[in-house]
Every structure is written in structure tokens, then in C-alpha cells.
């Protein structure tokens, strides 16, 4: 049994405009010593799903169903008090913006010590010493001195290191990193990712890393789940996903990463259109309004996440058949634009309602570190 098992998790929020289906039936699992990357645009539900694992989306407006099992314990039905015992102890989380995520009025060392004292019956001095030890472990020079500094006296990278130190202070079994490098300089990003990787091995923890940047997970993740509109649309090992991606959305994500390879001439291909409203999802495949390879039937049939080939661990939710997808990806890799690839592979008319060019938004991918 895996350390964390998420099964058919749904998180819906009641809002004035209607029911927001932030997460709509996702399943995944992670084991100790492994890293799962969850990738998607903003609003794809990747953060909400992880906050739900932590029990942080509970409110009277949230409807949560499905199952989350951690070390055999059912987290969705655990009491608030039980969740508090798990949070910050067995499951820890780090966030996107380390400056706003640290309390501005407390010293960094005290904030880490607070996490320790909340879960261990140790003296203030012991907790503070643990904080210093953790700051040292995450590579902060002069940790004893820096523990007495305030967050605003740290640089961005140091703040994220401090957040990591806080998260790992209680030897968590699972670390959830929500966009841990997005707010950081590119040069610092790589260091932070490397640090998370190293500490994962040292602590034998499981890591879930949430990002919109495939470059980040390429470096870190063993498995990758691509989320779109509250669902997982493709799930594969990192190698499989980068060598043979099967979902047009994944192709879009890959196409919008700048590479510094030999073929400098290649153009970045944005994913056209916008992420859909999570209140009124498009019928059929929810990616169809933005998919260059859409056919009429795709607007009616909702694809299931299924193995690409019988028995394969690589699963995708796409109505195109496996051979067509493989040929399309081959064409795209050969440098064709989506429109040209479609003409070569799908022998039918172009879709009648194409997305207008004015709506094209360059996907917010950044250079992988």
C-alpha cells in the first residue's frame, strides 16, 4: 500500500455564481522516497487537491468526496483535531511565496521552533536548537545567528530554505511543495529543487511537487500527473511523459517550454484560449475548445483516464486513438505546427469553430532551471 493514496477526490465549492468544481475526481498515489509532480495551469485544481490532503480546504462551502488515505488512515473523515496532529508532523507543506508565507513579526528560528513544539514535548531551548540544526541542514550559513533574524532580513532563496527547514523539522513522511520555486530567481530555483531532492532521500520522505512548469518536474519527479480543469488528463512516469506524451494539452505544455537545444529556430507554441470556467465546464472533453485536433464527437463524449495500451501504467484521457496520437506527436516533434500536423494526420475538415487568435494567451511557462 502506498503512503498516500488519493481516490476519486472531488472538491466542489459553493459560490454565488454556482458550484465551482475545483477538483473533479482525481486519483493518484505516492510512496516513500518517490516524487510525484502535479502539473497544470493556474485554476487546474492542483493546489486545491493538495490543500485538501492537508485538510486545509474544509469549510462549510466546500463539498469534499472520495478518499484520501495516508499511512492507512482516512484523512477526509479524520477529525479536525486528528488532522492538526498530522499537519506539520507527518505531512508538511511549503508554499509559493516564502515572504508572505512566513509571519513578518516573528523571528525565523522561533517560527520553526513553534512547529517543533507543537508536535513534540520539548523545551523551548531544545526546539530552538532543532530550528538551528534544520537551518544548517538546508544550507543557511551561520544558522544560530540567522535563526534570530526576521523573514524580511532574508533573501528570497533563504526564505524558501527556511520554509523547507520548518516543513522538515518534524521528519514528515510526506512533503507537499506547492510551486516552491515560482517566486524565486532562476538561479536559486535549481538550488531549491536540488535541496528538496537531497532532503527527500535523507529523510526517506514522499514528495508531491505542484507546479505549472514542466521544467521543474523534469528534474525532480518520478511520476507526473498533468491536470486540466480539475482532472488528471495524463499520468505517466517522467520518462514516458517526456518521451511519448499522449495528451494534446501535454504537447501544448511541452511546446511552450523554451529549450536551449541545437534547433534554435523552433518557435514557442502557445496553447490557444483560456482555461475553462470551473462552474460551467465545456461539454464532452473539457479541453476541446482549445484542442487543435478536436472532432465533433469530442464535444459530446467525456474521455476517461485509461491506459494508453492494455496493461500500461501510462494513462491518458483523450478521445483520439493511440496510433493517431503517436503520429501527431511525431509530426510535432519534427517541427510541424499543430495546424499542419492535424492536416497530415487527421483526414477531415478543420473544426468549424476555431479559437480566435485574439484569445491566444502565451502559456505562463518559464524556463526550467
Amino acid at each position: 500500500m502506498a503512503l498516500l493514496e488519493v481516490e476519486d477526490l472531488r472538491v466542489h465549492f459553493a459560490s454565488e455564481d454556482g458550484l465551482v468544481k475545483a477538483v473533479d475526481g482525481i486519483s493518484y498515489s505516492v510512496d516513500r522516497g518517490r516524487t510525484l509532480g502535479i502539473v497544470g495551469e493556474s485554476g487546474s485544481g492542483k493546489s486545491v487537491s493538495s490543500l485538501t490532503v492537508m485538510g486545509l480546504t474544509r469549510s462549510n462551502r466546500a463539498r469534499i468526496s472520495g478518499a484520501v488515505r495516508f499511512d492507512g488512515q482516512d484523512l477526509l473523515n479524520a477529525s479536525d483535531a486528528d488532522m492538526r496532529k498530522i499537519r506539520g508532523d507527518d505531512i508538511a507543506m511549503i508554499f509559493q511565496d516564502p515572504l508572505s508565507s512566513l509571519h513578518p513579526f516573528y523571528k525565523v528560528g522561533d517560527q520553526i521552533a513553534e512547529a517543533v513544539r507543537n508536535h513534540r514535548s520539548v523545551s523551548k531551548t531544545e526546539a530552538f536548537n532543532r530550528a538551528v540544526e534544520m537551518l544548517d541542514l538546508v544550507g543557511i550559513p551561520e544558522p544560530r545567528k540567522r535563526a534570530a533574524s526576521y523573514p524580511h532580513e532574508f533573501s528570497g532563496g533563504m526564505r524558501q530554505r527556511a520554509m523547507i527547514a520548518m516543513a522538515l523539522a518534524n521528519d514528515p513522511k510526506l512533503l507537499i511543495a506547492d510551486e516552491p520555486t515560482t517566486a524565486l530567481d532562476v538561479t536559486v530555483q535549481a538550488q531549491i529543487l536540488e535541496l528538496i531532492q537531497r532532503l527527500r532521500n535523507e529523510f526517506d520522505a514522499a514528495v508531491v511537487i505542484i507546479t505549472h512548469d514542466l521544467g521543474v518536474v523534469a528534474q525532480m519527479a518520478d511520476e507526473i500527473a498533468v491536470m486540466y480543469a480539475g482532472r488528471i488528463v495524463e499520468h505517466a512516469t517522467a520518462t514516458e511523459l517526456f518521451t511519448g506524451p499522449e495528451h494534446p494539452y501535454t504537447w501544448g505544455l511541452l511546446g511552450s517550454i523554451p529549450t536551449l537545444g541545437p534547433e534554435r529556430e523552433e518557435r514557442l507554441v502557445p496553447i490557444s484560449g483560456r482555461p475553462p470556467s470551473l462552474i460551467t465546464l465545456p461539454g464532452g472533453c473539457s479541453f476541446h475548445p482549445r484542442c487543435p485536433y478536436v472532432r465533433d464527437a469530442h464535444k459530446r463524449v467525456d474521455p476517461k483516464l485509461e491506459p494508453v495500451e492494455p496493461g500500461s501504467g501510462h494513462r491518458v484521457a483523450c478521445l483520439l486513438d493511440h496510433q493517431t496520437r503517436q503520429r501527431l506527436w511525431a509530426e510535432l516533434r519534427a517541427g510541424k505546427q499543430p495546424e499542419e500536423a492535424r492536416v497530415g494526420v487527421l483526414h477531415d475538415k478543420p473544426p468549424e469553430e476555431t479559437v480566435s487568435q485574439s484569445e491566444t494567451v502565451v502559456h505562463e511557462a518559464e524556463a526550467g532551471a
Partner: protein
Amino acid sequence: MIQYIVRRVLWMIALLFLVSAITFFIFYALPSADPAVLRAGKSPNPQLVEQIRHQLGLDKPLYEQYFDYMKNLLTKGDFGYSYQNNISVRTQIFQRLPATISLAVGAAILWLTVGILVGIISSTRPRSLIDRVSMGGALIAISAPVYFLGLVVLYLFADDIGLIKLFPGAGSYVPLSQDAGQWFGSLIMPWCVLAAAFAAFYARLLRSQMIDTMHEDYIRTARAKGLSERTVIFHHGVRAAITPIVTAAGLDIGVLLGGAILTETVFNIPGVGRLAYDSIINSDLPMIQGTVLLGAFFIVTANLIVDVAYAFVDPRVRY
């Protein structure tokens, strides 16, 4: 920090000079009764008025009067003597100050306690019944002027004229040193009346600050650490949301130490505010000057204290 404080103190002195000069010249620029005539009593003869005018130095040119006043103030710490009864202004003010301090400090303790508690409770349950009732009540308290509220409270609860004879009414103030019990009893109604609008304002201020703060990322971090909701609210939320309350409290207390004119007048408390009011009615310039300077002194000092305190409340602030 020290350098900053020294600079601020120099500014304070300059400001107080300016305040004294403005008060002095406004007194003469605005139409008011002739102090000498007021002093001379009913139907005085011109010689007497002239004599009094000379005694008080009112026959000298304005700048000379101001110069004399400042000279006495700076060299002897002498605030002059009342035009009305020749009592030393300094003695009079120091005599009146304990009543004003009693009123201001007691009310401040009351309004901070009530305001902060109500603000926190309301903010943790926004839109609940208790929130709506408290915020509605706060709106009424903010809108009710002290002189109106004071009279209503006297009418309802004073032990002389009240419908329910509960607390000592207007004019019952005695110094703390004389009779602690009566001192406390006589101040209950003034404290409540003075604190009402402040408590309401502070509750609303803290509520809105808290609601903003509880959406901050560091609150999410605190929850992610597994802290109890109580610790999250008090140790992380209130700690961050309280800073504007510190500022407001410092300034408000500073203003009130200079005299809560309305409350002191309604409840007939012999404080500095009442003294200022009486001296304005009597065109008693030295007394006006003294009370205005005292008020100005408390306000600028409170400003300085608040600014310095801010550096301790918020470690990001540096001077």
C-alpha cells in the same frame, strides 16, 4: 534610533512654540470679551478697568505681551496667572490633571478591552448573528455624540435624577486619594460614555484588519504547521492585525489627556477639559494658553511614543 528620537523632540519643541504663538494671536484676532472688563465685575468705572488692564499687562503691545509670556515660561516655568482670579495657571492645571488622567486612562482600558474582544469575536465569525449584532451596535455607538449619550445615561442611571438610581451622577467626582470607592463609582458612567464610541471604532477597525489578515499566506502556514485554531487566531492573526490599534490607541489617549472637554462638562468632572472650557468662556488667556499647550504637548508626545513603539511592534520598521 536615538538620533531619530532627538530629531523628533526638537521638532516637538518647535511645534509647541508655533502652537503657543497661534493661540496667542487667535485670541486677539477673534472677537472676545475684554478680559479687563470681565475681571472688574459688574458696572465697573473706567479707571478701575484701566488699572486692571495695566496690572495684567494688557496695555502693552501684542508682541511684548507674547515675549513676556514666553520669557516667564522658559526661564521660570511660569505659565502666568489667571486673569480671573490670579491663581497660578500651572498650579491650577496640575490640580485638575489627575481627574483628566483618571477619566482618560480608565476609559482607554475599557474601550481597548471591549473593542479588541468584540473585534476578534466578530472577525472569527463574519456575517454570523453575533457579528451582525456587534457591528450594528458599534455603528450606533459611533454615531451617538458624547453629550447626547452622556445625558441619556444620566437620565437613566444617575442616583439623583435617574430613573434607575444606580451610579453617582454628575458632579460626584472626588480625587482617588480622598475616597477610592467614590472615585471609582463616580467615574463608571463617564468611562462608559467616553469609551463607547472608541470601543465601537476599535472593534470595527480590528474586525476588518483581522478579516484581511486571516487570508494572508502566513496564516495558511500556521495552519499547515498543525497549530490549534486558537493559536492561529491569537498568536498569528491578532498579533499582525493589532498594529493599527496600537497607533490609534496612542493618539486617542494623547488627545484625551489634554482634556475630554465634552465628557468632563456633561458629568461636571473638574478636569483639564472643563478648565479649558471655563477659561474660554471667561476670555482667560493665560489659562487658555496653558490648557492648549498641555493638550498639544500630550498629542505630540503621544505621536512620538506611537512612532517609536511601532518599531517594536513591527520589526520591519527601522529608523
